[in-house]
């Protein structure tokens, strides 16, 4: 079983105050869905930590992948943040060992790409929850293939 939550942005609604509305949340339906939400929300802490760290230390800005945010007993939480401060978080069941770092990385890239497409959809206004079918199907395919 694999659980992912994509599209977890800093919407720079106004420059001074960043907000964390989830643009898109998707998870393999299960009773512990609520727990995922809590986990991901908490993981924002670490994302912010890492992002601000990026700010301080001069690292390659093009590296958007934040790697494993933190492990919990049941999940591994990975993070990815675009330069526009849109955050992606993928949560993987920790028993799932098939996913190496590289797979996760590429998954994020895929997410990022199709997110960009969504943004380019003239009918989508930035900040709204994502309802794009294309995005949906992309995500589901990703979830299936990694199950």
């Amino acid at each position, binding site marked *: 079983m694999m659980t992912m939550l994509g599209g977890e942005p800093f919407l720079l609604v106004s420059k001074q105050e960043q907000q964390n509305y989830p643009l898109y949340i998707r998870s393999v339906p299960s009773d512990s869905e609520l727990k995922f939400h809590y986990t991901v929300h908490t993981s924002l802490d670490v994302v912010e930590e890492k992002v601000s760290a990026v700010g301080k230390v001069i690292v390659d800005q093009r590296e958007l992948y934040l790697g494993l945010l933190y492990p919990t007993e049941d999940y591994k939480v990975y993070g990815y943040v675009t330069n526009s401060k849109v955050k992606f978080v993928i949560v993987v069941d920790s028993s799932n060992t098939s996913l190496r770092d590289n797979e996760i990385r590429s998954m994020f890239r895929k997410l990022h790409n199709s997110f960009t497409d969504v943004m*380019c*959809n*003239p009918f989508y206004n930035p900040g709204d929850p994502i309802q794009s079918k294309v995005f949906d199907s992309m995500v589901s395919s990703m979830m299936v293939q990694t199950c």
Partner: protein
Amino acid sequence: MSRQSNRTTESKKMNSELFTLTYGALVTQLCKDYENDEEVNKQLDKMGYNIGVRLIEDFLARSSVGRCHDFRETADVIAKVAFKMYLGITPSVTNWSPAGDEFSLILENNPLVDFVELPDNHSNLVYSNILCGVLRGALEMVQMAVDVRFAQDTLRGDNVTEIRMKFVKRIEENLPAGDE
């Protein structure tokens, strides 16, 4: 037949995303301004027409194609030259009516609709309707009254985009060509 034109036949490069987004912005703005889709379709067609009546000159200048002898030739020029020149795609010409006065352009990929997903409340919107207008306007300038419409659209879940063109009549000369 091919007259000399000072226009360069090769077109300048332009970023396709910008192009697509620009068109997208146009359409969505129209959707905001006019409540119902039908009206938007009309507007798009109108705009397209106004583009067409101008573009034809440029087209003829660039591609020194001469008069077409029949509708089939026209169809080929549109598909192979015009679409290639302005949209960088070459739709296929099919579904000729037995009378030979009606055919379809099949666009397997339509640059206007990259990224676009129609929201459910715009089911009647013919997103790329501007193309119809352009074709209509351009052909009118060469004395061909045609009826252009979208028969299929990938945006509406069809698996191809099909523009249906029907030859209506040959227009006599000296008819005033003004903006609609």
